[in-house]
């Protein structure tokens, strides 16, 4: 079962992500970001490259946005496609994540949608019965 679904937004793309835990919510949100942007032509993203990133935030919602902003920058600025993320530290104000992935390769992937930014607009992150749920709008 997919851990996210798209919701309608006139100009942009909205996504509702769920996860059993906070960590899972973040990992699923990262997956949604790359699913919306890229389409694989052959096989999964390899784990050729590794990176560790640290992001800060005022609260869990701010952390989530800053985490996704960082992944988006790594893609746009360094062509790094995140294949998997392993959250190694998660406090209320800071997140440390180990990423594996590879450099973007036009032979392997195509860009479906250019995401200009991860916005704060209409952002919600909440605890629900089954775990966590977030609504995020990507500017496209």
């Amino acid at each position, binding site marked *: 079962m997919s851990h996210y679904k*798209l919701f*309608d*937004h*006139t*100009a*942009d*793309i909205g996504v509702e992500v769920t996860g059993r835990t906070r960590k899972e919510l973040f990992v699923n949100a990262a997956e949604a970001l790359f699913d919306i942007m890229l389409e694989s032509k052959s096989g999964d993203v390899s784990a050729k490259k590794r990176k560790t990133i640290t992001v800060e935030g*005022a609260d869990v*919602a*701010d952390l989530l946005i*800053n985490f996704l*902003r960082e992944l988006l*920058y790594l893609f*746009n*600025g360094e062509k790094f496609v995140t294949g998997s993320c392993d959250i190694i530290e998660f406090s209320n104000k800071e997140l440390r994540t180990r990423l594996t992935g590879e450099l973007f390769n036009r032979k392997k992937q195509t*860009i*479906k*949608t*250019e995401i*200009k*930014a991860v*916005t*704060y*607009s*209409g*952002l919600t992150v909440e605890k629900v019965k089954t775990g966590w749920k977030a609504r995020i*709008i990507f*500017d*496209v």
Partner: protein
Amino acid sequence: MSGIILEKLDDNRWLLPQTGGMRVPGIIYANEKIYQLLKGDESAKQVANVAHLPGIVNFSLAMPDVHWGYGFPIGGVAAFDLDGGIISPGGVGYDINCGCRLMTTNLTLGDIKARLSDLTTALYQHIPSGVGSTGSVKLSGKDQKKVLEEGAAWAVKVGFGSAEDLETTEDGGAIMGADPEQVSARALERGKEQLGTLGSGNHFLEIEVVQEIFDEEAAKAFGLHKGQIAVMIHTGSRGLGYQICDDYLALMVKHAQETGIVLPDRQLACAYLESGRGKNYLAAMACGANYAWANRQILMHKTREVFEKTLRLSPRDVNMRLVYDVCHNIAKIESFNIGGVLKKLCVHRKGATRAFPAGHEAVPERYRKVGQPVLIPGDMGTGSYVLVGQPKATEETFGSACHGAGRVMSRSQAIKNSRGRSIARELSEKGVLVMAGSKGTLSEEMPEAYKNLQDVVQVMHEAGIARKVAKLKSIACIKG
């Protein structure tokens, strides 16, 4: 419409009454038909949200192409007092100085009809488009700094176009006060390879033909006449602008928390204009704006070259002249009469075009008798309108008008609706040749996804904000 009740003021304006934490009321420019469309999205709520921001003057405004954006609505206009007011990167948008430029030629449809396919192909080959496209202009760090400081003038200096082009570019193609030191290393890196590129999404380059003239005097001043071939370019500051906005939004989310500015939506994050962060953003935003002007100047030059080479005509025969270049995602420090006093304000135009009337000192000398050209591109394949700014714009809308048709359909809905159809073929049947890098873009941008441009423009015309001058029909379009 999230329970917001609008009161009809007249045929083209609706009042959004001041309630709760709103500091001023809102006004939405819409006729009955557009008002009905407002019910389907959250844009009225966003107009109300903007009205909560400190230092907002008179009204939180929305133009008739208003639609649901992030933070500010798209089509939103709001002005803030320099004393106690704020600046918001979200009120400018990610694509800083996204805008349009219109060029006319000496050619008629008959002159290019037989070569239209070659011409469009050549444009598609020479104008880099598509997601993450990189340009032929590679910038050293030193040159990039100059682009950010000098804007279109830099492009002219290195051989893209002529000094005359700057006369009919908004602000002469550069906002003063640009400081590259305020732009992050990340933004600079993203900007290095993207100068001279169109990008993707709703950005385009169109060949159009002037179909109808509504105002002979203004059309003459702008050099427009029926049957003439023109070119419209729509693009902005590419990754550099997106990154500047993104960097400063994150800073301002912090600033708002520190200064206690209450935000109905975090995307409205802002800083006081007199604060260090506010000033730094303005200096960085100016860099983004100047990059966009250099970008459009370079694209225009490449277009001129392609026309001359493909049609084997001399520059004099093609005579591609810049009518005007407008930005429609920007914040500007401008003076307006507020209650009898001339006040300096920071005017945010998020998907809105400046529309200054005749006599205004910011209008190029050659147009000063008629007013500033207002360029309104429509949806893919429909064409564009040229309007001229009217006195009521400076009285009611801080000198602003609409910027396009405005979406009514989400991208996913558009893709669903276009399933099993060939949008390119449908457009070709309507006489529009389209070349695009991706089928997805064509589906997302299909004509039905947008409001009727004629309705949007008519509201501005009837409300006395900007008068119709000419209508142009597209005949060819290239997209990313």
